[in-house]
């Protein structure tokens, strides 16, 4: 159990607020990168902020067949993503909330938000949304075990059961000793990111053809503030994945004395350095997603399991590299 010190606590909350503020920026970066590669000017970086702002000032329209599930889903989605974010460390300080076993709770919260979204999609009674829900549940049923497996491997490698210690407290010595495993896991998680966030080799977020959509087709009937919340929770989810990957892809020097778990001492510059690196890493991952989207075409639906197999293979290799 981690005993937070006041300064750490403040830093944790500051990091959380930073996450909440910057999450929608990732979509802007992805779109910018895609536009630049294609030789276009592209949308403004802050486009999603403008969209959310605009949507929040509108009224919601609800389908006649829908029940309260349809209305709960957006709120539940944001709430679950927020709760998950509470457990993720950022910038070398422990998360706001941390307890042994939260590495299982975090994926469960993500699953809960997806569950609510699928219920809402089925609630409309539309054939398209039902189709989208079916695909989403199929692929996530394959993706979730891999995510949990990855986290379990991480937990085994660090012999800890809290995300704050698994990801945040990664001392440089451990990382240097086991770096092949961390890199393999980062690759696996990156593939999972593409699948879970409906990015291009799996799903095309910009398509206009409902038949080929997965995520977008599920939120067709939402409007106004509801749609704004859904967009925001999607960006939070992307942020969460980027956070996990950057947490394992770069070793941390163990500033704030957190790695040694003894001294409360620490300095603001080192925290700023740590958080800054992490932030830069997250932005780089977003840019990488943009590059992948520019370089690849969407895969046929039946090839999506191959991407997941690839992710699973990398995760297995990472686990096997720990074999002694």
């Amino acid at each position, binding site marked *: 159990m981690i005993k937070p010190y006041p300064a750490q606590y403040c830093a944790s909350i500051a990091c959380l607020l930073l996450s909440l503020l910057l999450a929608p920026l990732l979509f802007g970066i992805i779109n910018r990168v895609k536009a630049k590669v294609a030789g276009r000017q592209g949308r403004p970086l802050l486009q999603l902020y403008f969209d959310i702002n605009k949507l929040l000032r509108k009224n919601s329209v609800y389908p006649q067949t829908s029940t309260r599930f349809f209305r709960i889903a957006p709120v539940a989605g944001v709430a679950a993503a927020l709760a998950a974010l509470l457990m993720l460390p950022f910038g070398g300080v422990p998360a706001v909330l941390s307890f042994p076993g939260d590495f299982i709770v975090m994926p469960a919260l993500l699953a809960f938000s997806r569950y609510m979204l699928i219920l809402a999609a089925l609630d409309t009674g539309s054939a398209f949304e039902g189709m989208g829900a079916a695909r989403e549940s199929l692929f996530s049923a394959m993706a979730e075990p891999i995510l949990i497996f990855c986290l379990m491997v991480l937990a085994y490698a660090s012999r800890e059961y809290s995300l704050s210690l698994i990801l945040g407290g990664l001392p440089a010595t451990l990382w*240097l000793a*086991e770096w*092949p*495993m961390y890199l393999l896991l980062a690759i696996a998680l990156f593939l999972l990111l593409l699948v879970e966030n409906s990015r291009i080799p799996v799903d095309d977020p910009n398509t206009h053809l409902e038949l080929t959509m997965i995520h977008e087709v599920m939120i067709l009937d939402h409007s106004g503030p509801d749609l704004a919340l859904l967009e925001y929770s999607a960006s939070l989810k992307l942020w969460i994945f980027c956070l996990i990957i950057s947490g394992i892809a770069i070793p941390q020097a163990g500033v704030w004395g957190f790695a040694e778990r003894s001294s409360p001492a620490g300095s603001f510059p080192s925290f700023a350095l740590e958080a800054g690196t992490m932030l830069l890493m997250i932005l780089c991952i977003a840019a990488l997603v943009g590059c992948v989207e520019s370089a690849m075409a969407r895969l046929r639906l039946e090839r999506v399991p191959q991407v997941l197999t*690839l992710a699973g293979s990398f995760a*297995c290799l990472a686990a096997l*590299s720990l074999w002694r």
Partner: protein
Amino acid sequence: MSGVPFFSSMGWLHVILGFIVLTDLSLLAAEHRRVCIRLIALQGMLLGALPLLMHTGETAIYPWVVAAIFFGTKGILLPWLLWRTMKQLPFSAMRPYVGSTVCVLIGLCGFMLSLWLAGRLGLTFNALFSQVFPTSFTTIFAGLLLIVTQRTALNQIFGYLVLENGIYLLNVPMIQYENLWLELSILLDILVGIFVMGIAVLHIYRVFESTDVDRFAVLRD
């Protein structure tokens, strides 16, 4: 792969071994011949570099000569031969008997099996053998899998070559004893073997107008 210092030659050895496992799995997943040949070339180059990392004797020139020979043959000459043979055949998509996803999963099982077997067989006098054993057997396993699951004669040659790479890997630690004339004659044999097989594939294409081994259905009881 774990518990070794980052920048020592041992650390690099493990990195290369890890990369060889990755090339094995990629070969199992590959869906185009061109990709296969490039992967084989990459694997050959990685293998060719290994003698440099394992050598512990006094003479400085010996490992370089050996590495150059194996790097040149496995990394350049053999892939070039295969590439030339492939160019003489018409383009055809690979249609394996077993899908690539399943192949990769079986390959992973092979890796696990090799790790288990390495633990089971125990240590040897020269610890290097135990260290290369899992990677080597994974490569051998991947080669056998390629031979069994592929439908065209050319792809079966790829499998044979990967199999031989695995055997070579098991033998590399012998470099420390500077007594490799036998390995060289074995290499020569394999080279001739690939050459003969390549000629046979061209004959098969000329006679059957395809390199699909499914057409071999006349001789049976």
